């Protein structure tokens, strides 16, 4: 009995170790003094953080990524929620086909979707005589292709568990359809909306493959700025940037968790 419990605990411990070790190492190395990572380090410093904050490409990258992720979430989540609601509630034909279609952008490899978008944008640019590649609207449009499928995927599961008789109860008590939606359906969808928004934001914020061909001068996202930096240097600046990212995302999750328990929706 005691042995099996011990084995069980060791397996859990090992699983966490494997998952968290790279993250821990990353955070630790960001404080190392040496430009080439050596162990043990010759000393500790915050120089790499200073470098990360001072280099313009990271700051711009962070701001662009944040803007793109926020806009793509604000536009994509309501659209995805509406689709998820229709897919779980109505009796339209070909639901399975529509679901697959909506999930398409995250099923297709990112680099393939990115190339397809790049070519489409180029053609549209010629037709419309305006810039799309390398602009904020272009990036947002591309990232909506990430936020819609993630919303559909996260929200469909959440909405299936939603008791429809609660909405019927509201109608029975005298509420008209629009009032039912605003006063009952929407509040009950809140956990699904929060979960979908968070996933969408993070997916957009950290996306590399889909975005690779669509960035332009002064309009590059953080992951791409990091990739570019890595081509020429391997000092711990990237570890510092990544640590800042981890802190920002962890803070977002903690704040979200105060309003909607994440353990209930993921």
């Amino acid at each position, binding site marked *: 009995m005691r042995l099996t419990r011990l084995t069980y605990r060791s397996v859990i411990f090992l699983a966490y170790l494997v998952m968290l070790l790279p993250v821990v190492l990353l955070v630790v190395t960001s404080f190392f003094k040496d430009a080439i990572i050596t162990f043990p380090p010759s000393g500790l410093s915050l120089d790499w953080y200073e470098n990360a904050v001072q280099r313009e490409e990271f700051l711009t990258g962070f701001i662009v990524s944040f803007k793109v992720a926020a806009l793509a979430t604000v536009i994509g989540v309501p659209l995805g929620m509406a689709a998820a609601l229709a897919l779980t509630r109505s009796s339209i034909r070909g639901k399975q086909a529509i679901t697959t279609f909506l999930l398409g952008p995250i099923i297709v490899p990112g680099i393939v979707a990115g190339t397809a978008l790049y070519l489409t944008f180029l053609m549209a640019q010629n037709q419309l005589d305006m810039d799309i590649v390398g602009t904020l609207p272009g990036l947002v449009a591309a990232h909506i292709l990430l936020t819609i499928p993630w919303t559909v995927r996260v929200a469909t599961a959440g909405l299936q568990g939603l*008791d429809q008789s609660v909405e019927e*109860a509201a*109608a*029975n*008590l005298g509420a008209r359809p629009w*009032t039912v939606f605003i006063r009952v359906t929407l509040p*009950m969808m809140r956990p699904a909306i929060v979960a979908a928004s968070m996933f969408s934001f993070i997916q957009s914020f950290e996306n590399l493959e889909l975005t690779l061909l669509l960035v332009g001068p002064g309009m590059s996202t953080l992951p791409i700025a990091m990739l570019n930096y890595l081509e020429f240097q391997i000092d711990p600046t990237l570890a510092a940037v990544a640590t800042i990212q981890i802190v920002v995302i962890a803070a977002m999750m903690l704040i979200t968790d105060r309003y909607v328990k994440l353990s209930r929706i993921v």
Partner: protein
Amino acid sequence: MKSLELENVCKKYGEAVAVTDMSMHILTGELVSLLGPSGCGKTTTLRMVAGFVEPSSGSIRINGRDVTKLAPYERNTALVFQSYALFPHMTVAQNVGFGLEMRKVGKAEREEKSFEALKRVRLDHLADRYPRQLSGGQQQRAALARGLVLNPDIFLLDEPLSNLDAKLRGEVRSEIRGLQQSLELTTLMVTHDQEEALTMSDKLVLMEAGGVRQSGTAQDLYEQPADAFVADFVGRSNVIPGRIEDGQFRTEDGTSMPTVSGSSVDARYYTVRPEKITLSRDGDGVMGTLRERLYLGAQTEYTVMVGNASISVVTATPGPDDMRASLRVGDAVRLAWDAASARLLNN
């Protein structure tokens, strides 16, 4: 005066018939139960009254006004859902006040009325809790209060006791019936539990396969079942197939059963309630073999084979001196009952 009338109501889903030619009439203060096995159309009927399902034909009138085509929010019915369907993001008081808010009742009056309704179901001390913080029984009382507060024309109950444990069920049963009678609520209740229907209702409507098999008071259905289905569904009954020969009912293997003279010659089923039969070791009556004995505490249930027919007998558990106390499975026994307590049915 409040009333609910259904006239030749039908509901078809494509070829499938959910409810066919349903007519009934409920008067002020009456509680009528729709009773039947699952899939018999009772819930569809309830949902048609509430307005969630539109009848294919026929009409529904509440207080004499035709509501057949009206949306749920245009009818003054209060439906208590089987799952209670409380609004999870609102407190108990907000739940109860919701209907009044929809009716544009001012805040002060709303709060006063909600409090009154909650007091009626002894939940006023939990007004500020959220539904998930309440027990199943308390949630149901909150759902009742949410309906009561509107003084509805028709009160609708969907399987009100099915989500409660056995002990609470009896308590809630009398509580609902008490409220219904003291407030003279005109009520339509749906249940598959015959005991629930028998004890709570003024009138019962027994449904099967979308149609009404029999309606009447509990006594009507129990004492004078119209057919073998009713006899078997309401209370328990031994239903034995056979036919009349020379004025005597004979089972399929020829055993003759006590028969009142002048019985219908078309009779195909012989029914007798388990509690009407006396079982003895060696007295008068039909001969049989004891196949099973179930001790239920105050009562004992015997299963006796009479020819090919299996007959249930329920008696008070015999004391230690009683001859029946020493009966073993396989023993020969005699069954006797008054021919008048049996009923012969044509179908």
